[in-house]
């Protein structure tokens, strides 16, 4: 959302004029060169915000993983009483909600934040303060959602929370309200983030970075952010209707008053299907960056990769009712949505084929990042194939609400999205932190994840086809589900340990790096292709010393390799030689600010107010308004800062907007 700032005029300022530092409402002074925690709380640097997104996401991965293991323990053997039905409902709901909204989405946002400005050659995003706000409000919403465990129990309606089960009549506890309000708040962060990142890609590209020279990751993130921009408001409306129903006795989903609760399913899935694509597309972008680097070949069919991504973005809006084949929608709707669902497999298939064609004939370097990417290609394809089988509406009627569905979406979201993100973590880790992750532990990490993952979710295909319903607390020994459930439980614990081993890897690698005297990993440790590798590692605070001028797709690569007279591709320089030295003199950066954090904190206050007592909304709203005006009173950019600004070109002033 646009926060209008005046762009400070460098050229028009009388030289040396000290502009009065605005003291917003006297509440805060501008944080100056903050260190430690304060630095992180007030930062508007897209790289730090990206790292915070990633950290929060990994924390929630752990937080949402524990419930998953509890579920598997409960289901390990028939007729177990480890979890009561009520607890089981809350645990699977919170597992799904946390994993989708607080792990996969922010992990995509983490990569987008860190990499997008670097890949398009910008100093920061278009609105740095809004960027910080997006993160804090996401975190506030996520934490608020999870405080429900301590304030009356988690939500228990499944992650899609169907009406009328989510109504006050059937669900009088506060769990659903926390789900509702927490996600509303997190949604604000997604929306402002989307506006910000789209503006960045459209408007902050380096000179010469034309559309068809943008890296695939940038393209996929752009599509993702457009999906967010248009899908989040639909969820917002659905949740507001539910909120009004629950808190102010509305009748939107009140069947007594003649309403049709199917409306919730429509609204939810109109959001929900673009949602599944916006979870997977960033991972697609990541592997499209990793595979060419380690296959030592340019991406095969670049324009097809771009346009298939755009096609997925559009078609993702036309398939929502395939989640609703058993809800009683008419035969024509079922047919139309079934056909659309089959068609959306086409652009996805184009992507898979292009990855394979990139691998084909390449000099493959099978390091951990590459292995995770190949893992995505393989496992996502398996998940995609079971997904297409849902497009056969008659078969889907059998599969709905069985473990077959659970198997499918874990193959695409865990085997797909999360493997892609792990690939990205291993790939870009040296860029962000200055040292590589250990390859040996990395390979253990990968292979144990593959084994654990397939042991956990592979058997669920069989269980589902045998008829085991999902969201059931237990089953009977006579039903024949025993063996595969035990296998899945064993697999899930392998998977749990494997997933966490990346943290162990980071620790071990850091210690080894420190012992070795913190050697410089160099700007380009992988001999890579895109612009983020043309600057030092870890990324200097100012990103680029000078805005790069781009003349090609994979411009950085072409600075390192050129054809000789015989048409043979030869290395003419190392990455180190052509990289920018990291001299930030004369670069002016947007100043840190408290206000994004303060503004974000007002939302959970209002949220708790809506759940417990409207009186609590009053301080929330007061804080909100104060923060909005405080934010506005504070110039986005602090020209009194120590950064010299006498000599720089106006183009180098970035993110002056907010």
């Amino acid at each position, binding site marked *: *959302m*646009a*926060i*209008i*700032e*005046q*762009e*400070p*005029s*460098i050229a*028009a300022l009388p030289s040396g004029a000290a502009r*009065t530092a*605005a003291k917003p409402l006297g509440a805060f002074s501008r944080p100056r060169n903050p260190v430690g925690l304060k630095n992180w709380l007030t930062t508007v640097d897209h790289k730090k915000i990206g790292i915070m997104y990633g950290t929060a996401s990994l924390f929630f991965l752990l937080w949402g993983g524990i419930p998953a293991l509890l579920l598997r323990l409960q289901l390990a053997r028939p007729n177990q009483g480890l979890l009561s039905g009520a607890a089981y409902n809350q645990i699977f709901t919170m597992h799904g909600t946390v994993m989708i909204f607080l792990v996969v989405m922010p992990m995509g946002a983490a990569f987008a934040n860190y990499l997008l400005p670097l890949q398009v050659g910008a100093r920061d995003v278009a*609105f740095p303060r*809004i960027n910080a706000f997006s993160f804090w409000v996401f975190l506030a919403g996520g934490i608020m959602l999870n405080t429900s465990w301590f304030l009356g129990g988690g939500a228990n309606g499944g992650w899609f929370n169907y009406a009328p089960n989510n109504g006050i009549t059937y669900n009088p506890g506060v769990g659903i309200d926390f789900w509702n309000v927490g996600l*509303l708040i997190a949604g604000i962060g997604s929306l*402002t983030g989307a*506006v910000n990142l*789209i503006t960045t890609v*459209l*408007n*902050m590209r380096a000179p010469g*970075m034309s559309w068809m020279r943008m890296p695939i990751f940038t393209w996929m993130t752009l599509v993702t952010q457009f999906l967010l*921009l*248009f*899908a*989040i*408001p*639909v969820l*917002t*409306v659905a949740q*507001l209707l539910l*909120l*009004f*129903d629950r808190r*102010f*006795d*509305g*009748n*939107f989903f*009140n069947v*007594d*008053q*003649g*309403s*049709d609760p199917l*409306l919730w399913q429509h609204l939810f899935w*109109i959001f929900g299907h673009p949602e599944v694509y916006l979870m997977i597309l960033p991972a697609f972008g990541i592997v499209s960056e990793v595979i060419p680097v380690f296959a030592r070949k340019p991406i095969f069919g670049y324009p097809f990769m771009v346009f298939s991504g755009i096609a997925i973005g559009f078609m993702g809006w036309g398939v929502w009712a395939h989640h609703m084949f058993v809800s009683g929608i008419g035969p024509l709707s079922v047919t139309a949505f079934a056909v659309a669902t089959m068609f959306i497999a086409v652009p996805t298939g184009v992507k898979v084929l292009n990855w394979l064609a990139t691998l084909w004939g390449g000099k493959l370097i099978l390091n951990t990042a590459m292995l995770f990417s190949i893992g995505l290609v393989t496992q996502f394809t398996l998940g995609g194939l079971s997904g297409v089988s849902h497009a056969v509406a008659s078969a889907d009627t059998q599969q709905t609400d069985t473990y077959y569905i659970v198997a499918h979406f874990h193959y695409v979201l865990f085997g797909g999205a999360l493997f892609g993100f792990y690939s990205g973590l291993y790939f870009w880790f040296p860029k962000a932190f200055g040292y590589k992750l250990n390859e040996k532990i990395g390979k253990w990490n990968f292979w144990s994840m593959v084994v654990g993952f397939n042991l956990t979710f592979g058997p669920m295909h069989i269980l589902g086809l045998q008829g085991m319903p999902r969201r059931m607390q237990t089953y009977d020994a006579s039903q024949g589900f025993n063996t595969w459930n035990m296998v899945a439980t064993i697999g899930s614990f392998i998977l749990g340990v494997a997933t966490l081993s990346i943290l162990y890897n980071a620790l071990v690698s850091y210690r080894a790096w420190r012992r070795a005297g913190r050697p410089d990993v160099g700007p380009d440790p992988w001999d890579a292709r895109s612009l983020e590798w043309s600057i030092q590692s870890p990324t200097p605070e100012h990103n680029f010393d000078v805005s790069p001028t781009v003349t090609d797709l994979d411009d950085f690569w072409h600075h390192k390799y050129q054809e000789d007279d015989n048409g043979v591709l030869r290395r003419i320089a190392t990455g180190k030689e052509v990289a920018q030295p990291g001299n930030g003199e004369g670069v002016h950066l947007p100043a840190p600010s408290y206000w994004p954090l303060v503004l974000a904190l007002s939302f959970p206050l209002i949220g708790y107010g809506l759940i417990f007592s409207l009186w609590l*909304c009053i301080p929330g*709203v007061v804080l909100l*308004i104060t923060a*909005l*005006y405080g*934010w*506005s*009173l*504070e110039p986005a950019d602090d020209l009194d800062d120590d950064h010299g600004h006498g000599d720089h070109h106006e183009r180098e*002033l970035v993110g*002056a*907007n907010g």
Partner: protein
Amino acid sequence: MAETTATEDLDHEGAAAAEFADQLNDTPSDFVHHEEHYTSLGLSNMKLAMWLFLGSEVLLFGALISTYLLSKTRFITELVAGNPYVIEGISNGENGALVNEMIAEASVEPLFDIPFTSLSSFILLMSSLSMVLAHKSVTEGNYKNLRIWLSTTMLLGATFMAGQVYEFTTFYREGLTYDGSLLGTAFYTLTGFHGAHVTGGLIMLGSLIYLSFKNKMQMDRAETVELVGLYWHFVDIVWVLIFTIVYLIP
């Protein structure tokens, strides 16, 4: 109801309301022409972001309008079919005449006062005119006219809101409560959301007027006026949709 939507709407409105608030900025305004800095498309970041935000609002109001239409259809069907809960909910046990009329016509039209709402629509359209004239004035450096037109816009917007409050009160007295019936819930939510957006716009206009009287809203800030204008016109076209779809089409 209006109160609750306003609170809710701060989610959407809040950041938009910040938009102009920052104009209270202490930056000296003595350099009238400021630098436009490099952007890839040559468009202003702010304006692009505003249009993207409005695009997202389209989906928001689209969902609310379709929710209203579906709810209205279901309401009338159930009312005509004689669902006792629905009849009780709408008549509140008092106003039988209105309910009978609705059943007879199988429509919610008897509820509405079209001439009154037409006047409201006219007022909102007029405020859109004064808003563009305000923008025109600021681009031409005519600050006196800027103040006049901004104040006119705010006055007209406030009048519209007053009409909205009057209409809500009337409907409430006629038995259309928020929690009584599906129609009430859907109608008050949709129009309340629009009203909350108008209120947000009024706050923005208020800030602009304050700044223009402080001589801080000058030619170099013309884009700010334009952005508030974009928001204001958007709220106006949402009313164009609501007026036709909710009020005129039975």
